[in-house]
């Protein structure tokens, strides 16, 4: 029954997209309403709840110590993981991370890591011995598509609050005490598009993702750089389409950045 309705909606979305229309009445290059909330998790070093239309994502940061990688002894690191909780959508199932979740996590991770927003050398505590690792975990709470962008904004908001815990003389974290905050040099914003019925749609919903032939995400910074790109699922784009999407992504990034940098 459910799949019949889904099939119908998918064909409807494709039909409408061919005329440049969308099921929820948005324009093809229109983003859904973005609302953000920060600092709800008392146990985390930074936390954020991001809503993009009906999509809701929560993210939190935990700072842990670890041994630096041998090839970069004076650097710390970050790790970002995504999880599509079965509570977020009737189609999601529990279990080890699926390939979809791995991809989302890695694209969000690259968008922030490669923008050099965080100076990893400042996360070093003692060269070759001890450094900070910032673990971000984000979870889909209600999934109506575009977990990529919602997750990337949530992760960035966590790093923006990022408190660095104090260590005692045995290098153990003292709970509730902090030495400082993470510094962010840039605010990279991930922007995702899909192609449905030959039309490019910004900020896809769940049904639009199901109907998509191809997906494209790009992370943009305020000083005109692109930090990461990812083309996903089957299908293809022309170079002209990619240019168009990049242009739009910079514009979207500007708007989102203005909103989150106020916090």
């Amino acid at each position, binding site marked *: 029954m459910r799949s019949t309705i889904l099939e119908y909606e998918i064909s409807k979305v494709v039909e409408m997209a061919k005329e440049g229309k969308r099921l929820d009445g948005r324009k093809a290059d229109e983003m859904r309403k973005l609302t953000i909330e920060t600092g709800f998790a008392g146990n985390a070093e930074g936390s954020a709840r991001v809503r993009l239309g009906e999509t809701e994502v*929560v993210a939190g940061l*935990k700072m842990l110590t670890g041994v630096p990688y041998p090839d970069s002894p004076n650097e710390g690191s970050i790790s970002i993981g995504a999880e599509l*909780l079965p509570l977020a*959508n*009737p189609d999601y199932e529990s279990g080890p991370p699926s390939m979809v979740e791995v991809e989302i996590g890695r694209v969000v991770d690259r968008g922030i890591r490669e923008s050099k927003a965080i100076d990893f050398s400042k996360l070093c505590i003692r060269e070759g011995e001890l450094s900070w690792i910032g673990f971000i975990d984000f979870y889909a709470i209600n999934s109506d598509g575009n977990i990529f962008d919602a997750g990337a904004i949530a992760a960035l908001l966590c790093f923006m609050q990022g408190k660095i815990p104090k260590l005692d003389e045995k290098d153990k974290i003292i709970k509730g005490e902090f030495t400082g905050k993470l510094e962010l040099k840039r605010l990279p914003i991930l922007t995702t598009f899909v192609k449905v019925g030959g039309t490019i749609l910004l900020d896809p919903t769940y049904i639009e993702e199901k109907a998509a032939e191809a997906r494209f995400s790009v992370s943009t910074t305020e000083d005109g750089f692109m930090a990461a790109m990812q083309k996903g699922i089957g299908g293809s784009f022309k170079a002209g389409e990619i240019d168009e999407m990049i242009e739009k992504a910079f514009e979207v990034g500007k708007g989102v950045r203005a909103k989150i940098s106020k916090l």
Partner: protein
Amino acid sequence: MSKKGEEIPDYKKDKKRVDGRKMDELRPLSIKVGVIPNANGSAYVEWGQNKVYATVYGPREALPKHTQNPFKAVVKATYRMAAFSVPDRKNPRPNRRDQEISKVLSEALEKSVFVEQFPNTEISVFVEVIDSNAGSRVACLVAASVAMADAGIPMRDLISATGVGKAFNEIILDLNKEEEDAPDAVDVPLGILPNSDEIVLLQMDGLLTKEEWKKVIALGIKGCKQVYEIQKNALKEKFELGNVSESDDSGNALEKKKETGKKMKEEKGKEKIKERSEKEKKVKK
């Protein structure tokens, strides 16, 4: 987290708890119903520092097939904690504690639902803790039960739950983390069907005498009744004022309204019967 050198509190003398509460006082509890549009039923609970989401999907086909029961629906609860919900990062993989809590929650919820009406199906309940400070499993049970009602699944009763136990030499309601870590701490997660006082969730860690146990269970049931009132009000807020979320199609919403109306009528009926029987008793005396 009493640090070394600091004096351990004694509630018998202090008459006040570390966070200023009375011995029989709950932490602030708020419940929101219908927060996740994708789900058939959902709830968000903030209880002290605890923050949990609960959703209900179903009744839907139970898969894999061998889990189906031809006589009743299977209630399957899944308890999970976000990696950032605890002071040390939690490994995202479900551990033995998660599995045990999932099991006891499933079993408690099953008792509250007319499972025999939905053979071969599964009612999936997912609870996710995004911030915690002692008592997350009872917060989850409270949320899950409200979500179940929100989903319009026929129920015997809501489940009301609370933590209760002993810390710092006194019997107390709704322990916080500091109390849970007390040297003499006893933690009793308790869940009941509040209209019949049937106990559906009960666990205990620690040492209690028989006398203390009697006090604990009495205080726990009293606490559950307080939680019940808050649960009822949260449901009324959504259904009585017509705050039905847009994602419901109108027919469904109407049905839901009817159901809650029926439930409330039933409750009133029960109360009346109780009153009547009490009057009769008095007359007989």
